């Protein structure tokens, strides 16, 4: 059976999230959340800040304790590519882009290689498409936020994962980079990759995702973007209830 874009409904989902609750102290960050992530689709997660989007990704990564169940029906490598919101990287570590890609993908200690670091042949076209080939020798902490985010995305795509988790890359990506990133993401479903994309950019959701879920502690709505992203829903999801009830706020 070929897994491709649009196989959708009949095939069992890649990831089934069932009544997952994550508590931080007494408060639940996400509360009895159930979502199906279909195979080979781009599934966007939207919602207000602090609504539990990143927490959901961390639960999927197994990095945070939760109650409930997350089932994965891996068919290929079962590999997860992860693009965090931002790297915790200071200028104390002078790691270059080429070295970062080597350290992420290889087991051999970095200092055991004396010759110049060259990216693997399968990485070269990705470097060009993400417009990173001229940055290989630059140090990671010197790059702009957008450039760094593209490097991290490239890291997540090598080797090709079965599930790609992207945490809010839209915010930090420059306009030129954004087109490159989006065209690359759009090709992933055809390669059998499922992507879960946390974003604030609703236009981006419309452009590239097949499904969108709005998360504010609980699932507010979920479905194909064109059908569910209506003005009312988006407004009520992103604004606290009291603001919607009395939309006029005195200017400060």
């Amino acid at each position: 059976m070929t897994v491709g874009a649009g196989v959708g409904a009949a095939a069992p989902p890649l990831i089934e999230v069932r009544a997952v609750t994550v508590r931080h102290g007494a408060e639940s960050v996400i509360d009895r959340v159930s979502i199906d992530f279909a195979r080979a689709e781009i599934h966007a997660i939207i919602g207000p800040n602090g609504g539990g989007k990143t927490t959901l990704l961390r639960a999927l990564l197994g990095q945070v304790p939760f109650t409930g169940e997350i089932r994965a029906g891996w068919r290929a490598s079962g590999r997860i590519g992860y693009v965090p919101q931002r790297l915790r990287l200071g200028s104390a570590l002078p790691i270059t882009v080429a070295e970062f890609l080597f350290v992420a993908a290889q087991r051999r200690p970095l200092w055991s290689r004396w010759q110049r670091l060259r990216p693997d042949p399968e990485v070269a076209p990705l470097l060009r498409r993400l417009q990173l080939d001229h940055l290989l020798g630059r140090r990671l902490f010197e790059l702009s936020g957008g450039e760094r985010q593209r490097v991290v995305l490239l890291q997540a795509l090598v080797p090709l994962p079965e599930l790609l988790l992207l945490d809010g890359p839209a915010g930090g990506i420059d306009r030129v980079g954004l087109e490159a990133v989006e065209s690359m993401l759009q090709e992933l479903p055809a390669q059998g990759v499922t992507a879960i994309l946390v974003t604030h950019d609703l236009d981006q959701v419309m452009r590239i995702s097949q499904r969108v879920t709005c998360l504010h502690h609980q699932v507010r709505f979920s479905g194909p973007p064109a059908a569910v992203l209506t003005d009312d829903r988006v407004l009520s999801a992103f604004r606290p209830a009291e603001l919607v009830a009395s939309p006029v706020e005195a200017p400060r």
Partner: protein
Amino acid sequence: MTEWLRSATTSLASSGWLPETFAYAFMVRAMIACLILAPLLGVLSPLVVTRGLAFFSSAIGHSALTGLALAILLGESLDGAGAGVLCFCLLVSVAMTYVRHRSDLPSDTVIGVFVAFTLGLGICLLVAVTQRFNIHQVEALLFGSVVTVTESDLLFLLGVAVMTVLVIGPMFNGLFLSSVDPELAAARRINVARNDYFFLMMLTAVIVASAKVIGALMVEALVIVPAAIARNVAGSLRAYCVWSCVFACVGTQGGLLLGSFVPVPTGAAIVLVLAGLFGVTFVVSMATAAAARARGRAREAAGRK
């Protein structure tokens, strides 16, 4: 190896190239000890600095003293206390890591609590110990002393070095990746917590083994300063590790040489040389950066014309 190096240094000393102390066997043993220890600490140093473990190393140095006092009180001789010190330091290291992983407190606060505890305990125990031993004998562990390095110390050091290369080698990249982003490393199936334990236990063993040669207080410096010097000159991670090794070797051998001219403890001499190297590279890196800025301004000005 010992014999060969000894005949080489003896002939160099008699021909006047090296100070005459290098004709003695203890000096040759000290040189060999430093040649094992320097590259080892040189490779670990960037990892220590990147992972923010400078204070951790200091805590292990302090607990070595407490461990020594404890071992002696339990009936060990001064020379046979090595294993006891290592066990105590490993215990402290594992306890510290366990609490660090689970506490909401910042890492340096947790380590500070352990430093306070081990120092307090150490001082109490030392008072008891000095009733039986001369305090100067215990001091050797604090400030290091080349004359006290024995053949068995060298074997212990070599053993720890081989173990460290075997354990840290395969997880080297993962350790760097997890200090860039632990969750990214975990997503790439790197066992971040396990790596952290293994790394810190090996670091503890290296610190304890080195303490006998250059002194507990000075090991802390040798774990931190080579990376600090290397960061001043390195443009990439690989250069960072290589320079750190080079400067650790230059610093230790330079310190031995300095110690044979001036009557100061070896450990202190080594640290002074390293600090001097840091000062020089810092000034050079500032000057290079200023020159680069000036070039940039000149190019801009030329572009406007």
